[in-house]
């Protein structure tokens, strides 16, 4: 995959405070890249550097092979931003807002009209083009916020918590839109505090804290950094006098089973995180003539990884 964004040894100091400390990561073309970190981790500073909103102390950042300092204007042309706040003008209609922000990238005339119409269509606001933001619901405003950031067809889109405060339907629509942007070839950097969103749409995820790089990879790779174990619970009915300890001991000899315990009518097993097939375990239980009344698995998720890597103290 082609490296589209390269952040190398980035350092940003505010006086004595180091907001970004020797941060390096790459984002590949056409992927949705999740950037996670607790409050004050340096996410915003990093994104501000990438968008040229902020300068930096040391290091380098390149977008599509262009240095963000030397080729600032060219880089700006291919970057779009969807900020966390609803950044639109209340006195302009949805269409006027989108047109205005697209015009800042040199679009005009029919091209501008077409781009605005496409952007509104993309976020499902075509029929609300003449509506002003104050007349819109929270979800509509969020979608308008996205339309304003993508109308000029940027190749790199930076989205900072674009789903804050929206209902489930709008969130679903927005997440599908982001995936559609990727499918159209755009590269997306996505930050959110909703871990399930990041899990759902991001191809790769980086976790940063205290301005430093902590980990980067796919969801599975990140989970494996923390734990390779998941919990399998089997609900059954043990006959009177059944040797539960012996039963668990035998189960533990099966492949992927790392240990377990049995109490009352429940067996809890620790199995390998990569285990996708429980048939051997179930087969063994059938041989023991134990009924299976229920099954559940508890896997470690991204939130557990995030807490494990960044700590649980409040920021």
């Amino acid at each position: 995959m082609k490296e589209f964004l390269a952040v190398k040894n980035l350092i940003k100091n505010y006086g004595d405070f180091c907001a970004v400390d020797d941060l390096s990561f790459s984002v590949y073309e056409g992927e949705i890249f999740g950037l996670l970190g607790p409050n004050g981790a340096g996410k915003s500073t990093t994104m501000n550097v990438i968008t040229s909103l902020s300068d930096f102390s040391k290091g380098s950042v390149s977008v599509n092979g262009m240095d963000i300092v030397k080729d600032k204007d060219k880089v700006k042309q291919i970057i779009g931003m969807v900020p966390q706040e609803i950044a639109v003008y209340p006195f302009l209609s949805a269409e006027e807002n989108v047109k205005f922000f697209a015009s800042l990238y040199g679009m005009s005339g029919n091209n501008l009209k077409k781009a605005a119409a496409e952007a509104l269509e993309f976020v499902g606001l075509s029929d609300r083009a003449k509506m002003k933001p104050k007349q819109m619901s929270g979800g509509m405003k969020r979608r308008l916020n996205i339309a304003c950031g993508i109308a000029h067809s940027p190749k790199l889109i930076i989205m900072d918590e674009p789903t804050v405060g929206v209902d489930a339907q709008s969130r679903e629509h927005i997440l599908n839109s982001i995936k559609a942007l990727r499918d159209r070839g755009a590269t997306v950097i996505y930050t959110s505090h909703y871990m399930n969103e990041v899990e759902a749409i991001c191809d790769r995820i980086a976790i940063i804290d205290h301005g430093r790089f902590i980990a980067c990879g796919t969801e599975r790779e990140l989970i494996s950094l923390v734990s390779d174990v998941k919990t399998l619970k089997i609900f059954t009915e043990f006959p009177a006098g059944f040797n539960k300890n012996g039963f668990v001991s035998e189960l533990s000899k099966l492949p992927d089973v790392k240990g377990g315990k049995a109490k009352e009518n429940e067996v809890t097993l620790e199995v390998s995180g990569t285990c996708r097939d429980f048939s051997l375990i179930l087969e063994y239980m059938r041989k023991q003539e134990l009924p299976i009344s229920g099954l559940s698995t508890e896997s470690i998720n991204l939130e557990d990884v995030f807490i494990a890597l960044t700590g649980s103290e409040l920021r």
Partner: protein
Amino acid sequence: MLSIILNSIRSYFRSGPNLFFTIFFPSVCVFFLGTFLEKVEASDGAVGELSVVYSVENGDMFSASAFENFIHGLESDGTLTTEKVSEMEAQNFDSDVCSASVVLDGSDIVIYKGKDRIKNRTVKAIFDSYSKTASAYMSAAAVDPMALTGIKLSGESFIQSKDLGTNRSMMDYYAVTMAVMIIFMGSCISGASAYTEEYDFFTIDRLNISTVSKSKIYFGKIIGNMPMIIIQIASVILSSTLLFGAKYCNAPGLNLLLIAMFISVSLAALSVGVLINLLWPKIPAPSVITPLMWVMMFLSGTFQKDIHINGFSEKLPIYAVQSAAFDLTVFSRTEKTVSVIIVSLITFAVIVAAGAVKVSVRSKNI
């Protein structure tokens, strides 16, 4: 940059409060202040008929003769009507019928005031001037009594009234002061809100990450506010002239000079506002600038022409602009106006350059 200019104009026209405070409000101020304060300033208009009773019973012969001569002169001019009475009658005059009573005691003049404050002031002014003139003659006579005998009296008044070519009213006064008010308030606050609005709407980052340079955004903000300035000035001048009958200059050329001064002062005020906003973008500029402007306007006589602090008011920019405007509208004198235009344009150029330098510094505190 054109988009930013057009957006600023749209922002102005789609804001009800903006339109109210910059177009409607000043026009209404001209009307109300002009109409109601016209009555307060009645002394500037007709004093009304003056009738005075007088007594010279106790005056010395020379003083009584001169005094009576003066009284008769006033009566023949139609300045006042007089009636000679005894001293007793003069002291107990009917204040419902007479404006005042004047008694000559030796060479001193005693005035018994009536009920009307304005008429009292007028009568006092008349006899003060008589007293001063008389003492000037006495001084001259003491030096060279013979010289006075050579003066030939033509019988005509020494005073010639020069008509300024127009009848001035308080409406005219407030038309000028309200125009100046809107220039300073409207322009400065518009300028000072240029970036604040972007911060309020969270659109500042969208502007800054776009391909439009910060300098172009800055100039777009300034240029985008200029049409508003023209509209503000035009609305005050047109509404005060067409709706309320106010007068500015007598000659069209002078009116153009007046408008040129208003525009140049507006540009200077606008640039100051934008610079303030650049330096302190998160301060709600209107809440800081508005009270300052009101104090400055108050001390410059914008709302009441008699309010003035000697040695201080003259140094206030609003006072200087008003003074230049009155010089131009009332006396057709252009010197102050030209000076104000030059100073304003220099101020505008310097501040715009300073702002451009400020925005070109690429940094942001987060």
